[in-house]
């Protein structure tokens, strides 16, 4: 019995009126954990009851502590009839199980009901006494820290990276059980919420066990997803990166700063790239491997690390390389996968490019929840494929890895993508604190593969930075821009959007037709991205995320990334339009006007993004450089095993223009989509990565928002082109809408713009020929400014480059002064910031309090009365935010970082006046302090600070 959970119900406020006669409520509370329930006394006739209960004590296994949430139900006592439930609060006590996270949960929680929403608040105190249990065979994994953040958390130091962890739990969906026919919607929703809460607890515990087995103490980049497979069940799966983290405490200042100052490594310089050449070289971008109906359910073992030996060709690992990867007491894995997107300097040696895989499956009812093998096998297969793609790119690792699904009825597309990379092996070993290797900032762009046996056609040139190694002409990655990368100008959001119709079909036919469409979609998205990149004269994409969603009669593809001009890569050539029938004069004219428009746009974009790479390079190549080049070549040929030098002209990439043939109808479409992208308004910047490349002066004023739009397509018989146009317009309109809403905050940067599209099924709605299109957007806005410390920056903006400021601030201050006078008694509500970023600009995170992972269902049977679908969803999202903030505040935190809304499933039936919505959110609760407060802290702390922020550089 290794744990004692204690809970105390203090008080309630703003309760709803439950007794119409007296306009009051006789409230009491049930506190339940596992199968034990306690009750408070009834506090009669009050909307603000003061229970001040005793401590309710639950003696439980730590396994249960991890799996189960504490369930608090507020009820209205009724002498004659059954007691009415007012609402519930689920409290995840996981953060209390780690000694480094929160120690107590205490605060006001919104009382939530799945039918009525938030109904008042309740003040609760929760504590856990944990007894140490050193049982080797225990099933719990208390103490393993979880982070959603996909970089090394700010107040930790990574001692060892163990690698990939994954787990998957399946169950029947309560919504589809027979009992659902007779129980109330409320009971059904609550059963579902509870089940998912239990499943994610179990999942987290199991992952924790794997981490402990590997010898780690934390999971970074923890990504948990739900697959609502409908009839066939409910899948909760998670991936993450196991690490051993050391806490940087104020006392340990004698330790070296995080990733610097280590005795120079004898083997400095990038390790030899792998020279394995697979016989068939798949393109880096879209190796989709469709297959319908998975029948072979291989006996996937549930071991920690995926087994490699089976599939990897014997030639693959060169012995000297694999040696550093031998982690003691650890299975060997030469193709580790990392969910991290941001790395300590020197960790990434080379980056190969994006690898991605998609697979179409037919869903089958999960017969035995205890054996999730089929789903496991699916993912296992996909990960193997990703690894082999990475290998084809000459890389031994995949970073920035993520997995996703899109389900439409019984068809499911499983997708995985990541970035093939070479990593510095020293990070895989104990005591790996050095930055090591490349002292220049360009190392990661150098190709990891063999230039003579390139896995895909690419123009190679010598690196524009070091002039020693080869670099590709463009680079696509799923990771964040490494801090050491040198960038010219600013970055921007680049999106490729695509819609493809498909015939309505069932079963395998449907799966096959989807499989057949996928490669084309990937190809077209890729072309679009490439065109748009060139149009902005940029040469690299970061944070690339391609989402393909399946609907009944269409497929949607949305690729978002942040384009930048990497100084080390060659300047992109322009876009050349060519016609196939040059004889026609008017046609020529048409082409030349098009060409002019494109050239103009490129020139304008260069101005806009401030891209002015040094042009003189080529001239210099003529005289003094070759000597240096030669010497460098010599150097290289000695340091590396085999290096035949090819005589690639440095300027080669520049002369080459991207040719679009206009005869092609696709190309017409491409050009259209190229030129219809509205320019971003002055003062705005947008990107989907954590930080905006090229902007370094952030203020601490920030704002997070979520926008959801659902469109009804009136005509299902639209052509591909028509659909494309509509889809593009929708996305553009959404962005325009954002720019408009935020116009008062200029200069303003939208960071971590995260688009999600879905084609929701509509079995409920009997309107034929209508298709819904849902776009969901989660954005974080940051305002670049001169970085002064201000108390109330939310609404006051710093002008970017000039020292002049608009000054609503003094006024705001005096007003707020007055308001504190007039504000009532009672502690003011803690302000909790939420952000999808892993940090808050201008602040320092001092403590991680634990992961927040919450799942809510809201249903209504009075849709019109609640303001229609928009009113319903608006209040639900606001409620979810409120509950998340309350949980963060109760843990003692003041911000939620790495926030994401992973799921937002919306269903409606206007005819019945009903709607239902499911939302899953997650993030890391933290305590942050402003940089200005920090000056009060002893210098040793602040000196440490500089070193830890060194990792991100741009903050």
């Amino acid at each position, binding site marked *: 019995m290794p744990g004692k959970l204690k809970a105390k119900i203090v008080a309630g406020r*703003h309760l709803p009126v439950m007794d119409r006669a007296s306009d009051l409520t006789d409230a009491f509370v049930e506190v339940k954990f596992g199968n034990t329930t306690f009750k408070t006394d009834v506090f009669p006739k009050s909307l603000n009851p003061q229970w001040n209960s005793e401590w309710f004590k639950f003696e439980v296994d730590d396994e249960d502590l991890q799996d189960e949430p504490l369930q608090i139900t507020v009820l209205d006592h009724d002498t004659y009839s059954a007691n009415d439930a007012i609402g519930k609060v689920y409290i995840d006590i996981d953060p209390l199980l780690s000694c480094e996270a929160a120690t107590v949960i205490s605060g*006001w929680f*919104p009382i939530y009901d799945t039918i009525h929403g*938030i109904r008042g*608040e309740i003040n609760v105190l929760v504590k856990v006494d944990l007894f140490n249990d050193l049982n080797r065979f225990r099933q719990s994994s208390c103490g393993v820290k979880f982070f959603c953040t996909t970089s090394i958390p700010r107040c930790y130091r990574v001692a060892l990276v163990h690698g990939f962890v994954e787990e998957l739990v399946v169950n029947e969906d309560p919504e589809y059980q027979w009992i659902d026919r007779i129980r109330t919607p409320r009971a059904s929703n609550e059963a579902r919420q509870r089940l998912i809460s239990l499943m994610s607890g179990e999942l987290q515990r199991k992952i924790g066990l794997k981490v402990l087995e590997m010898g780690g103490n934390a999971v970074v980049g923890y990504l948990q997803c739900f697959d609502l497979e409908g009839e066939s069940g409910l899948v909760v799966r998670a991936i993450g990166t196991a690490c051993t983290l050391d806490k940087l405490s104020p006392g340990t200042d004698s330790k070296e700063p995080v990733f610097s100052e280590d005795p120079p490594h004898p083997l400095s310089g990038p390790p030899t790239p792998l020279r394995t050449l697979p016989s068939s070289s798949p393109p880096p971008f879209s190796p989709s491997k469709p297959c319908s109906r998975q029948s072979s359910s291989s006996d996937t073992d549930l071991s920690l690390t995926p087994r490699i030996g089976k599939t990897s060709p014997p030639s693959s690992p060169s012995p000297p390389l694999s040696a550093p990867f031998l982690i003691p007491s650890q299975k060997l894995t030469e193709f580790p996968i990392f969910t991290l997107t941001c790395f300590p300097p020197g960790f990434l040696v080379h980056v190969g490019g994006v690898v991605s895989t998609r697979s179409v499956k037919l869903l089958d009812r999960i017969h035995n929840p205890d054996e999730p093998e089929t789903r496991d096998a699916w993912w296992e297969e996909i990960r193997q494929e990703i690894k082999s793609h990475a290998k084809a790119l000459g890389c031994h690792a995949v970073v920035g890895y993520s997995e996703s699904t899109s389900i439409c009825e019984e068809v499911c597309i499983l997708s995985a993508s990541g970035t093939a990379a070479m990593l510095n092996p020293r990070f895989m070993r104990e005591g790996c604190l050095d930055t090591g290797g490349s002292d220049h900032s360009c190392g990661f762009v150098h190709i990891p593969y063999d230039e003579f046996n390139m896995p895909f056609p690419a123009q190679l040139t010598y690196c524009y930075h070091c002039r020693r190694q080869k670099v590709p002409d463009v680079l696509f990655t799923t990771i964040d821009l490494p801090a050491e990368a040198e960038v010219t100008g600013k970055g921007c959001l680049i999106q490729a959007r695509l819609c493809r119709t498909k015939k309505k079909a069932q079963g395998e036919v449907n799966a096959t037709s989807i499989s057949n469409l996928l490669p084309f979609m990937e190809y077209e998205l890729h072309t679009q991205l490439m065109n748009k990149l060139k149009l902005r004269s940029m040469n690299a994409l970061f944070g690339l995320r391609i989402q393909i969603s399946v609907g009944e009669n269409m497929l949607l593809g949305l690729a978002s990334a942040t384009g930048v001009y990497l100084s080390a890569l060659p300047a992109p050539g322009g876009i050349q339009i060519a016609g196939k029938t040059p004889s026609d004069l008017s046609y020529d004219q048409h082409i030349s006007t098009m060409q002019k428009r494109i050239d103009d746009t490129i020139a304008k974009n260069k101005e806009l993004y401030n891209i002015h790479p040094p042009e003189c390079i080529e001239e210099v190549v003529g005289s003094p450089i070759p000597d240096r080049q030669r010497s460098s070549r010599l150097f290289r040929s000695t340091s590396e095993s085999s290096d035949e030098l090819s005589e690639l002209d440095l300027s080669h990439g520049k002369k080459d223009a991207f040719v679009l043939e206009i005869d092609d109808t696709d190309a017409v479409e491409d050009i259209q989509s190229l030129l219809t992208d*509205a*320019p971003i*308004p002055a003062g705005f910047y947008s990107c989907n990565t954590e930080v905006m490349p090229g902007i370094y002066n952030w203020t601490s004023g920030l*704002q*997070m*928002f*979520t*926008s*959801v*739009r*659902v*469109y*009804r397509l*009136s005509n299902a018989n639209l052509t591909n082109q028509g659909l494309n146009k*509509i889809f593009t317009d929708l996305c553009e*309109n959404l962005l*325009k*809408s954002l*720019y*408009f*809403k935020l*116009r008062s905050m200029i200069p303003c940067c939208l960071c971590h713009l995260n688009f999600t599209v879905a084609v929701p099924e509509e079995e409920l709605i009997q309107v034929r020929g209508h298709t*819904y299109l*849902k776009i969901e957007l989660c954005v974080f806005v940051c305002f670049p400014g001169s970085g002064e410390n201000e108390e*109330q920056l*939310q609404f006051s903006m710093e002008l970017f480059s000039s020292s002049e400021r608009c000054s609503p601030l003094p006024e705001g201050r005096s*007003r*707020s002064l*007055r*308001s*504190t006078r*007039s*504000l*009532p008694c*009672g*502690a*003011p*509500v803690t*302000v909790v*910031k*939420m952000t999808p970023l892993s940090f808050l600009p201008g602040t320092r995170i001092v403590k991680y309090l634990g992961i927040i992972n919450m799942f809510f269902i809201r249903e209504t049977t009075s849709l019109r009365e609640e*303001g229609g*679908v*928009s*009113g319903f969803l*608006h*209040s639900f*999202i*606001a*409620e979810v*935010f*409120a509950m998340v*903030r*309350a949980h963060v505040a109760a843990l003692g935190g003041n911000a939620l970082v790495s926030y994401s809304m992973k799921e937002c499933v*919306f269903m409606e039936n206007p005819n019945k006046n009903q709607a239902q919505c499911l939302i899953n959110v997650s993030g890391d609760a933290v305590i942050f302090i402003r940089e200005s407060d920090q000056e009060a802290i002893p210098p040793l702390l602040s000196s440490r600070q500089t070193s830890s922020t060194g990792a991100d550089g741009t903050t």
Partner: protein
Amino acid sequence: MSVELDVFVVNTTIMDEEVYQLWLDGYTVNDAVKVRMEGGVLEGCDASAEVLHSDTMDQYRTFQMCERLLHSPVKLANQLLFQIPPHRQTMLIERYYAFDSVFVREVLGKKLSKGTKKDLDDVSAKTGVTLKSCRRQFDNFKRVFKVVEELKGPLVENIRKHFLLSDNLARDYAAIVFFANNRFETGKKKLHYLTFQDFAFCAGQLINNWTVGALGESLRSAFVFSDNMVEDMDVDLEKEFLQDLKELKILITDRDLLDQHKSLVCTALRGKTKAFNEMEANFKNLSRGLVNIAAKLTNTKDVRDFFIDLVEKFIEPCRSDKWTAGDMRLYLTHYTNSAHVLDTFKHQVVWDRYMGVIKSCILKMYHD
């Protein structure tokens, strides 16, 4: 293709003050969009009317969700649903409880009952304030009235504490509550020239000097924290004081006293004003007017007619004699002070308490 659902939710609630005002003013979404378009918000933005419509809808929804909280502003500060910075909260409350002076002028002194609410469409048609906005303002009055009705302690302070309003707005609400409670007549044609601010000022004078709480007020200035129990009601005029006012009748019933008073006032005024002759001629009439008002105040009906009486019995005669504001001040000052010199007049305290208020009210009300 049509937009089925369109929401935008922010962690720290963003509100456009202009849209808030349009919402408060009772504009429909479409009208608000029109007004905003004409106001030129789209200038310099690459945005369409659609974008503006969507933005307006979002804001309207937020306001609607906030409205419930605004009904009890104290809740707004400790609710969890919306994260609103304190200075924004203050703005929201202040604007929500702000009212149109044309509207309040119409309902001032009326009973805040369902009947009055039913007539709001007439008020709306007359004032040009939208019905929706009229209803909000009316409900605000009623809500404040209901809450403070049952509370002890100073009226303005209570309003400020329970509705978190600024001093000025709380004072205005105190006036509205006070008028509604005493049902002062304000709608007669002769009173039309008076603005709400004139009445609010007078209400302030009455509350501070003629109510039960007023005694406490003077005490409180000496001992700040001592007496919360004494000052029960700021909303009713002090009965005892009204009774005492009857005693003032001696000033007009006693012929000697009246003559004496007149000669004292005239001596003081002679040569100081052009309207001297009119003052001298009208003295007795005017004095009778004021003292009669005082004597009748025990009667609730006459309390209601307080302002109309002031205008009919005093302000109008003076105005027809073309007194300037300066004349008025001079006259009232000497009229009040001369009474102290009368040896047989023993009700100096009551007189001062009465005339202090009357003087400032008349001075405020004496304009075109």
